[in-house]
């Protein structure tokens, strides 16, 4: 999402343009501009330089338990570590501090076996007590319970040195990911912390690959290796350097000058702007595993409570053009399950087949609206039987140029089926408030970004996150809710059989396709760029061992331990 903030400040586009204009003799002979050589020379090849957060100056904070984004990257997954990591590209949990998980027959008890021999960076052993202690902290301090594990947990108990048992209040298998992704803190250090909610933990003691704070200044900090790291020979990188860049523009500029080795920012027209500057070393990989950009429809309002209207609007949208014009061709049109490539393994071909309403078909769209009783009136605009014309506003955030361009295309498209839609821009806060309170006709938005389709569909169709119009709802902004969906969701919660889960997820997709509660547009790319000038073994198309982007915690840990100096 942060890439849009840059578009607000607009300069990279102009910078990119300028870079392109400069087809001077310099370009062919010397791929990197002169600034690069000086910048590169000062950085030791043993330190990996990366940009994940956008800040002008650093505040020292390595508390992995407080609001994500307030502690320095990679505190949650890099300094500290989770129990297991879900690998989106492989669709499976990778053992980390825990080697095995086991559900009881009734799915109300989860037993985790911890990795023996793991040490904290001060040399003390890591045990099941630390895990139980961490979860106990979350229970005592509601402000730390971001994954909301205590909404479904009843108790956490260290059975022996390497076994932890979680007791659930109700069968809730999808909760696994929130339990195992929780960063674990050492009991012997944290039991004396007076208020863990405001603790800044300036010198962390942790299990992760990078735990030593070597340098901490307002515009740069550097993390060194954990002397006791449990993976032998890893990490191969000596230290991580984080220069402060206040925005995407500045980070992108550092990418161009060769100062950055790894970044996760949005770069417009990347082939020309970045790759062509140094074809051998500059690489990117944008797999479509982010959340799905979606046109939300307020289903509490007429005429959007009619599924035919929702489908007709969707059929009139030219997604190919949106992808090409608004997204630089970085993605593809969404199919009618709305799932991104992160959920490829779950996709139900039957549902994809049944969902014709994400394919451009004006004749069918017009026929659907005719059938629903919306006759064309003055100026070709359709009107409801009670004469209210189909005239709507589509809400967008000011300056998020990809969304704005997409909506401009949609508005053009909808004219062809006699629906007059106009672009309405708001600043971020008022836009988001309208979306959450259900005070809109149509609005751009995103979907949930979670390991299984369970949360994805729960937040689009379930009654659990449904709130009345006017009340803030964290999810389910379109306010469509179905009891059939609830039944499927409940069944999914209580089964840990993969085949059964897949069957249920397939049924959810069919239900979604049938009801079109929202109008999916395109799956979001996950942004990642790297340079092989100094380091290798980044994930890419040919070696997709993990997501490339550093923005996807805790999956960034895979890359942190695998990257090697050249």
């Amino acid at each position, binding site marked *: 999402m942060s890439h849009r903030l840059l578009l607000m400040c607009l300069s990279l586009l102009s910078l990119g343009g300028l870079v392109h204009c400069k087809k001077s003799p310099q370009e062919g002979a010397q791929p990197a*501009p002169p*600034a690069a050589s000086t910048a590169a020379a000062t950085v030791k090849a043993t330190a990996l330089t990366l940009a994940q957060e956008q800040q002008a100056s650093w505040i020292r904070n390595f508390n992995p338990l407080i*609001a994500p984004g*307030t502690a320095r990257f990679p505190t949650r997954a890099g300094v500290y570590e989770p129990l297991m990591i879900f690998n989106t590209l492989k669709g499976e949990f990778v053992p980390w501090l825990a080697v095995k998980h086991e559900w009881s027959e009734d799915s109300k008890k989860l037993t985790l076996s911890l990795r023996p021999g793991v040490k904290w960076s001060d040399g003390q052993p890591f045990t099941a007590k630390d895990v139980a202690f961490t979860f106990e902290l979350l229970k005592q301090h509601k402000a730390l319970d971001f994954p909301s594990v205590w*909404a479904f947990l009843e108790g956490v108990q260290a059975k022996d040195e390497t076994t932890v048992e979680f007791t659930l209040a109700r069968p809730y298998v999808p909760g696994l990911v929130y339990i195992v992704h929780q960063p674990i803190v050492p009991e012997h250090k944290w039991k004396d912390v007076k208020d863990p909610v405001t603790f800044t933990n300036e010198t962390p003691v942790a299990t992760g690959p990078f735990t030593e704070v070597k340098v901490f200044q307002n515009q740069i900090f550097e993390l060194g290796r954990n002397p006791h790291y449990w993976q032998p020979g890893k990490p191969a990188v000596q230290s991580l350097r984080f220069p402060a860049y206040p*925005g995407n523009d500045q980070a992108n500029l550092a990418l161009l000058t060769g100062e950055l080795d790894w970044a996760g920012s949005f770069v417009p027209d990347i082939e020309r702007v970045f790759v062509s500057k140094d074809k051998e070393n500059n690489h990117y990989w944008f797999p479509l595993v982010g959340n799905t950009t979606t046109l939300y429809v307020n289903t509490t309002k007429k005429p959007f409570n009619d599924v035919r209207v929702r489908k007709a609007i969707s059929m009139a949208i030219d997604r190919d053009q949106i992808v090409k014009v608004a997204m630089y061709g970085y993605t593809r049109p969404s199919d009618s399950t709305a799932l991104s490539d992160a959920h490829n393994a779950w996709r139900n071909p039957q549902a994809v087949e049944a969902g014709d309403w994400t394919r451009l078909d004006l004749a069918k769209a017009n026929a659907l609206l005719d059938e629903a009783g919306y006759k064309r009136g003055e100026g070709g605009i359709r009107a409801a039987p009670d004469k209210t014309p189909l005239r709507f506003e589509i809400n967008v955030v000011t300056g998020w140029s990809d969304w704005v361009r997409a909506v401009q295309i949609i508005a053009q498209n909808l004219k062809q089926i006699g629906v007059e839609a106009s672009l309405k821009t708001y600043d971020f806060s008022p836009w*988001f*408030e309208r979306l959450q309170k259900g005070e809109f006709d149509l609005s751009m938005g995103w979907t949930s970004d979670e390991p299984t389709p369970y949360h994805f569909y729960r*937040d689009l169709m379930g009654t659990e996150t449904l709130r009345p119009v006017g009340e803030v*709802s964290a999810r389910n902004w379109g306010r469509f809710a179905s009891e059939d969906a609830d039944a499927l969701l409940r069944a999914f919660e209580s089964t840990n059989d993969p085949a059964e889960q897949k069957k249920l997820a397939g049924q959810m997709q069919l239900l979604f396709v049938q009801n079109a509660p929202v109008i999916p547009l395109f799956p979001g790319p996950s942004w990642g760029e790297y340079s092989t000038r100094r380091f290798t073994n980044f994930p890419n198309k040919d070696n997709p061992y993990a997501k490339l982007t550093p923005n996807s915690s805790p999956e960034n840990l895979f890359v942190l331990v695998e990257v090697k100096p050249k």
Partner: protein
Amino acid sequence: MRHLLRNLAVYAVAAWASLTLNFLIPRLMPGDPASIMFARFAGQLQPEAIDALRVAFGFTNEPLHQQYFTYVRHLLQGDLGISIAYFPAKVTDVIGTGLGWTLLLSGAAVIISFVLGTTLGVVAAWRRGGWLDSVMPPVLVFLGAFPYFWLAMVLLYTLGFVLGAFPLRHAYSDSLAPALSGEFILSVIQHLVLPASAIVIATLGGWMLSMRSAMVGVLAEDYITLANAKGLSQKRIMFHYAARNALLPNVTGFGMALGFVLSGSLLTEIVFSYPGQGYLLIQAVRNQDYPLMQGIFLTITLAVLGANLLVDILYVWLDPRTRTR
């Protein structure tokens, strides 16, 4: 002295008014910080996390007037609260990371621009019709019409990126630790050149023009003719007779300019990744971080009021009339 005391009372009232506005304006914005932070994670946080955020940030539903009294009381104790965007750091600490750099950048830029612009104005008026007088004003006014950050981007691209003559970002070299060494100071100066130039170029024209027109008026005065008749040196007449008297309007402008430059330098800072207040303010607005916003506005307000006070004192020294009354 009475003149100064009266002014101090005015400053106290101005400070109170701006503190109050400071409190009110952020609270008129729609939305709430917890939702904004939740939204920043675009679907990666559980819906229930909003509640955790609300608890963590300690939101109150107190009536506005009570919040106001708490705000004033804390302010008098020097407690600006805890930042939300940089939770759980204290606002004073967050501002502390950048304030020095912002003051250095905008202070250096304003002073250079003032001294250079005023001198150019004096010389231009003295040699009226000369090349300096006919070429510089239109050029500088033209450059002054560009926003600071745009000039900053042009400088960054041409001198920094293409020619590589100056560093592209930050306030000092990343490989140095802040210290009172020659190497560090040199690095700071080197990093200051481009951002300060952007501001100087944009503001130079104003100083020059106002000085020039004030000079032209003063040069027609009888005491200049008298000074000439007395056979004083041209340099002495130019600086001690004409410039000193023509300087007053520019000195008044100096206090005001600091306010404009402080707010204008924010964008320049962002272009050069300068670790000042600029980005902090944007972060504060983006996250609806009231305490931080208030803190930053407070420092800007105090800086402007302080500069004006300084100007008042300077006035007493420059203009004998203010002393006699």
